[in-house]
């Protein structure tokens, strides 16, 4: 099969977005584009880990959620009541917990193997665990008891939300470092299972620790500076005048304008990352990564520190995913921890993007992300579309109320088999993806 | 009358040929031995004869029939058996199960053949309920040979059956192999212990870099001063 050049492929995708804008609505096109830019960044992170280094991370959703958490912690107003009630004690407990684990690792490494060491570890860890719980439980409860309907969590730092992108990356990096330290030595599919586990645990923590992020009660007041709010625009005289001049109603224009602001912001981030990653890939470091991926044993024999390189790239890739997570929460103005509990959407979909685009190729990952997001989001409206165009369907369906209801209700799920099919077809007929690695 | 012959075989694992016009043959009820330095392509030649390697040239004939295109399984059905150099037993299965798996293609009663194998290798009967992976190196080789014999083959191919085996056990094994040959089974075998092997060989092949260097009766090769000097250590 002859391959289209990348420019043409991006052109086709661009055209598809324009078609969505013309045929459906520009708001929708921009919404999908913004989602697409975010998942493109996630895909870059996964591509770093898998494409550059062959590391199998399927805990993507967890790192992504962690990035979202950063938004809450950075941008929420400082909550003095929570600080008075228990925030310091919670922090202390966490530091204490970390210290116990550190001490445990030290004991394990320093002491000679034997019954004594087992005993010491047991006492340390079990004792440490109960002490931790003693400090932590009461403090967490105290914080959660504060005006639970409105806050009930530790609040944040009251800083500009854009900062959370960095913090999100940082949080994800720290978590990834922990995972990498324990699990990176494992074989690829074991590592995959381990990352799946970590991802689920991270999300479980965010769902259940109300003091942290209000859990299922969600956080909405996250801010979006420098992007303006629609309501503010709609009350701005100059803006209304401009909308009039362009013959649009201010409401629509404000949505589009806000969307475009996000698009611009995200595009800048994406491009910066792309450039950095391309540079890294072409540097000696990138060449070494690929050498390690292609033949780990040979690279090791040549004196490359494979484990260290893997650690580096795992942490970096996860950090990129964390950045995307922070951007995502900022875009939607909502941190909803439960929503992350969907590995299909937040982990495996990203994998499909990387594979479709071409493992190891950054541009490919971006392309794959835009295509798959388009398919995914378009399917969202399919039920509605079918419902309003029932007469276009064969009479077997439109004639029978139960059948047509079933079709309308289930239309959205067609995206799952479709994506699966795309993935399988790519793997089978074009395993190097749309834009193969050079 | 040549029973099995791989004639002018050329081929390898990838684009590079390992075998170059290599010919190996064995007559009915005789023993043919292949010797040569490490990496000469002995194992590769055996795989080629057994259909585990794509040949780019040459052919393999069994009893006059061209079998070059047959898969290894089909060759088993035709009466060939092969004991590879490594990984030649099912380590997690008992000795008896190993033998049963050897006879997988047979639908008749295999009790008699199994008794014959036990008769040939009495130690296996003692250990028949033990996982083969727990046996000693020599015992494992016996299991491997026994497994191959279970199909009641007409030709038995052995790739270094005495690898990692003490001299005493090695002599034992050679005796058993001669015994097998006496029953009319042709034996094509690769051996590292060239002297002993050529001693019992009707035909000997010296392979170097994937090509026949010397081909003669075992006796003649043993007598040839060049062969002695380079391959038999004087």
């Amino acid at each position: 099969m002859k391959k289209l050049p990348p420019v043409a492929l991006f052109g086709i995708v661009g055209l598809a977005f324009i078609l969505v804008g013309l045929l459906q609505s520009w708001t929708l096109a921009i919404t999908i584009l913004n989602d697409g830019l975010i998942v493109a960044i996630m895909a870059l992170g996964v591509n770093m880990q898998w494409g550059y280094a062959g590391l199998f991370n399927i805990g993507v959703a967890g790192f992504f959620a962690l990035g979202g958490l950063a938004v809450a912690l950075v941008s929420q107003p400082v909550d003095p009541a929570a600080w008075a009630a228990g925030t310091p004690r919670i922090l202390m407990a966490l530091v204490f917990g970390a210290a116990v684990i550190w001490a445990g690792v030290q004991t394990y490494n320093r002491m000679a193997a034997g019954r004594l060491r087992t005993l010491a570890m047991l006492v340390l860890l079990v004792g440490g665990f109960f002490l931790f719980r003693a400090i932590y439980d009461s403090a967490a409860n105290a914080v959660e008891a504060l005006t639970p309907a409105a806050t009930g969590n530790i609040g944040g730092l009251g800083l500009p939300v854009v900062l959370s992108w960095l913090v999100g990356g940082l949080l994800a990096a720290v978590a990834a470092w922990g995972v990498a330290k324990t699990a990176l030595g494992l074989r690829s599919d074991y590592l995959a299972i381990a990352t799946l586990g970590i991802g689920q645990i991270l999300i479980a923590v965010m769902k259940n620790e109300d003091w942290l992020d209000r859990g299922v009660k969600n956080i909405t007041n996250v801010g979006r500076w420098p992007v303006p709010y629609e309501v503010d625009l709609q009350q701005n005289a100059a803006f209304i005048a401009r909308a009039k001049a362009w013959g649009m109603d201010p409401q629509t224009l404000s949505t589009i304008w806000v969307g475009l602001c996000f698009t611009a912001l995200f595009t800048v981030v994406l491009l910066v990352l792309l450039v950095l990653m391309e540079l890294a890939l072409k540097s000696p470091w990138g060449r070494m990564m690929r050498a390690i991926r292609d033949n780990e044993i040979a690279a090791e024999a040549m004196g490359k520190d494979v484990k260290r390189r893997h650690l580096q790239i795992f942490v970096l890739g996860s950090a990129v995913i964390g950045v995307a997570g922070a951007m995502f929460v900022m875009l939607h103005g909502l941190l909803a921890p439960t929503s992350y509990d969907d590995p299909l959407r937040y982990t495996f979909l990203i994998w499909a993007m990387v594979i479709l685009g071409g493992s190891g190729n950054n541009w490919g990952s971006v392309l794959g992300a835009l295509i798959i997001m388009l398919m995914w989001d378009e399917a969202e409206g399919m039920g509605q579309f079918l419902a309003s165009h029932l007469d276009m369907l064969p009479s077997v369906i439109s004639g029978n109320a139960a059948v047509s209801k079933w079709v309308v209700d289930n239309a959205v799920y067609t995206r799952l088999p479709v994506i699966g099919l795309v993935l399988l077809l790519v793997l089978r007929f074009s395993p190097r993806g749309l834009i193969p690695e050079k | 009358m040549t029973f099995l012959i791989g004639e002018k075989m050329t081929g390898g694992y990838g684009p590079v040929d390992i075998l170059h016009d290599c010919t190996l043959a064995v007559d009915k009820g005789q023993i043919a031995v292949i010797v040569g330095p490490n990496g000469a392509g002995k194992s590769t030649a055996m795989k080629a004869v057994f259909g585990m390697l794509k040949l780019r040239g040459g052919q393999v004939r069994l009893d006059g029939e061209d079998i070059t295109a047959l898969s290894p399984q089909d060759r088993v059905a035709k009466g060939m058996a092969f004991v590879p150099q490594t990984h030649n037993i099912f380590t997690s299965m008992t000795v008896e199960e190993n033998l049963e798996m050897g006879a997988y293609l047979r639908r008749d009663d295999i009790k008699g053949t199994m008794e014959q194998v036990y008769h040939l290798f009495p130690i296996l009967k003692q250990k028949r309920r033990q996982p083969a992976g727990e046996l000693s190196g020599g015992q494992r080789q016996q299991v491997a040979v026994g497994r191959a014999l279970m199909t009641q083959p007409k030709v038995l191919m052995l790739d270094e059956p005495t690898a990692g085996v003490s001299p005493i056990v090695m002599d034992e094994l050679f005796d058993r192999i001669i015994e097998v040959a006496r029953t009319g089974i042709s034996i094509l075998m690769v051996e590292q212990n060239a002297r002993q092997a050529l001693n019992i060989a009707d035909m000997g092949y010296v392979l170097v870099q994937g090509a026949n260097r010397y081909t003669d009766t075992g006796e003649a090769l043993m007598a040839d001063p060049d062969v002695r000097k380079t391959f038999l250590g004087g």
Partner: protein
Amino acid sequence: MVDFLNAIVALLNYVIVPATSYGAQLALGALGVTLIYGILRFSNFAHGDTMAFGTAITILVTWLFQSWGIGFGPLPTALLALPFGIAVTALLLLGTDRMVYRFYRRQKAAPVILVIVSMGVMFIMNGLVRFVIGVQEQNFADGARFVITATQFRNLTGLDEGLAVRTSTVITVVTAVIVVAALFWFLNKTRSGKSMRAFSDNEDLALLSGINPERVVMITWLLVAALATTAGVLYGLDKSFKPFTYYQLLLPIFASAVVGGLGNPVGAILGGFVVAFSEVTFTYAWKKVLTYLLPASLAPDSLVQLLSTDYKFAVSFAILVVVLLFKPTGLLKGKSV
């Protein structure tokens, strides 16, 4: 003494009985994963969805039977429907193998490629399950709910604590024992079963012995269909059916298979129980049992729950990591491709 008995009963009721039935369900799930790993040599991420699919079909057939007025007395109708669920799942798996996996097998593709391929299959099966039955929770258990209720037990023994034994628990354990016994009989005593073990042990030598790999693979998928559907139906009878929950079972099931040693059927069973018992032990509030056992002055006032049930994944995960760090091939020797 009575306190001691009460403690034992409470322990049985809240820890041992639930963990046993959960462990049996995990073991059956893990057996499927481990068989696929042993024969086809990859970790199948579509296994949770396979379980969900088999269960969904079984539920549909159950509803059909119920609408015809067919029941199974005190036992759940689903048990009658189970063979149908297995059959349809087997067809699906064989079809998938023919259309998807076989190609890669012929190519001798790296295991990690097959893992990614199984992701694609996972998407498709996930969608399929939603089409078949939707995403909502379904309760399809009928028949008698309890073999003995807590009240009956209390009246019977005069203890304060009750021991409730649910029908689903008994069915789970009995079915699991039967299925496992049949599986092991098959693997150890039949020609086909032995050829599977041989293939798993040493693929090349199996080929040299004339074992037909396609046949081995086919039998494997049939067994996997039976194991996965049975595991799914038992889990659904015990708790309830919800596609997403089944999807999430992937982690504890993988943990069980890996902890026991991937590719090792006995290991899968051991792993299932290790994971189940740890999960329940860590997430159970021990206050009740301790109150019975300790003198009043020492009685705990907190729940003595080591972890909230929301963190049960953490337990599977922790066991997984600890075992892998110290015994990389699992508790019983697994294979490493």
